[in-house]
């Protein structure tokens, strides 16, 4: 009975002070925002990792297509299009001087780097003359098609030669 009477005179019961409420609220805000930031960073990193692995796969596919192109055609026709300039080999094995549209930009470049991709000693006497190029496939990616290409890229390189 006494408790009920106390309840009736609610005005007399003292609640939390304004300071206590403010401190509580700001603590809650700090904790919640840190959780939110951690979550957002994790999501961004997961997205980046997915895109990077996809980009690496695409770059490896470019190198593989370059090899098939060499066997299918000749290394000279590959060099004509891709030596010291960027090209792109599409899924039908057509070497094009342009990169495809989409969120991934793909380029393939051949370079003559004697130190990394050497030709055999005394190769000049062989027929056909061995040539060796360093092929570098670079895939860049962006968030969506409207954005310009950022500096995020995956690079795969390998030697391509007509010499076994």
């Amino acid at each position, binding site marked *: 009975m006494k408790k*009920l009477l106390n309840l*009736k005179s609610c005005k007399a019961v003292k609640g939390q002070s304004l300071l206590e409420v403010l401190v509580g609220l700001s603590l809650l805000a700090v904790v919640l925002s840190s959780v939110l930031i951690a979550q957002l960073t994790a999501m961004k990193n997961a997205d980046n990792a997915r895109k990077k692995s996809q980009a690496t796969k695409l770059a490896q596919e470019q190198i*593989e*297509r370059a090899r*098939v192109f060499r*066997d*299918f055609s000749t290394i000279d026709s590959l060099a004509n299009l891709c030596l010291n300039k960027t090209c792109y080999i599409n*899924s*039908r094995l057509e070497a094009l001087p342009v990169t495809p549209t989409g969120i991934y930009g793909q380029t393939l470049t051949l370079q003559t780097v004697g130190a990394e991709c050497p030709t055999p000693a005394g190769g000049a006497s062989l027929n056909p003359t061995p040539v060796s190029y360093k092929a570098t496939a670079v895939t860049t990616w962006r968030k969506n098609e409207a954005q310009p290409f950022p500096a995020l890229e995956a690079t795969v390189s390998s030697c391509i030669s007509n010499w*076994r």
Partner: protein
Amino acid sequence: MKLPITTYRLPIKKTDGFSLIELLVVVALMGVIGTIVLQITTVMFRSQGKAELEKAAKQNGDLAMKIIEQTIRDAKDIVDCGSTHPTYITVTNRDNTQTTLSCSAISGQFTKQSIGSGAAAPLPPSPITDTKVRIPGDCVFNVVCPDNSERQTPKYVYVYFSVEQANSAATDPYTKIDLSYQETISLRTYMGY
């Protein structure tokens, strides 16, 4: 003697109910919470649907690639050297029967057809992908026969195809599935060099 229930009722009778502000705050809060729950539910259902489609596409693509790989790797020979991106390939098996693998943009499916060496009528092509997915008809079987005066390399086949969901009209990036498969497969038993 008074019943206890009346003592409980007394303070309620005296209160004035909720004020307009309180009601507005409650309604606004319910609105906010409702919106958040609805958003979460929508995203959940959508990603679940996409995961199902992705699973179907991956299963079909993996199976098709496995069958193609087995057929080509175990083949005795492939005659059409240097074919430029046809959508089919015919290989000669070790028992001298022939198997044709093809993808059709019309049916949207990969098919496998075996032809015996005898006079028996060939079996109709049997699909190796199901109707949940379609192959958009841009598949490539490129038979590469390297010039063996330069390198001692066996014949190999460059295979490329992509898999999308059956209703390809969907262009919504949240539901669009487009998996691509690329592989080079050498003839294991090819002794032609």
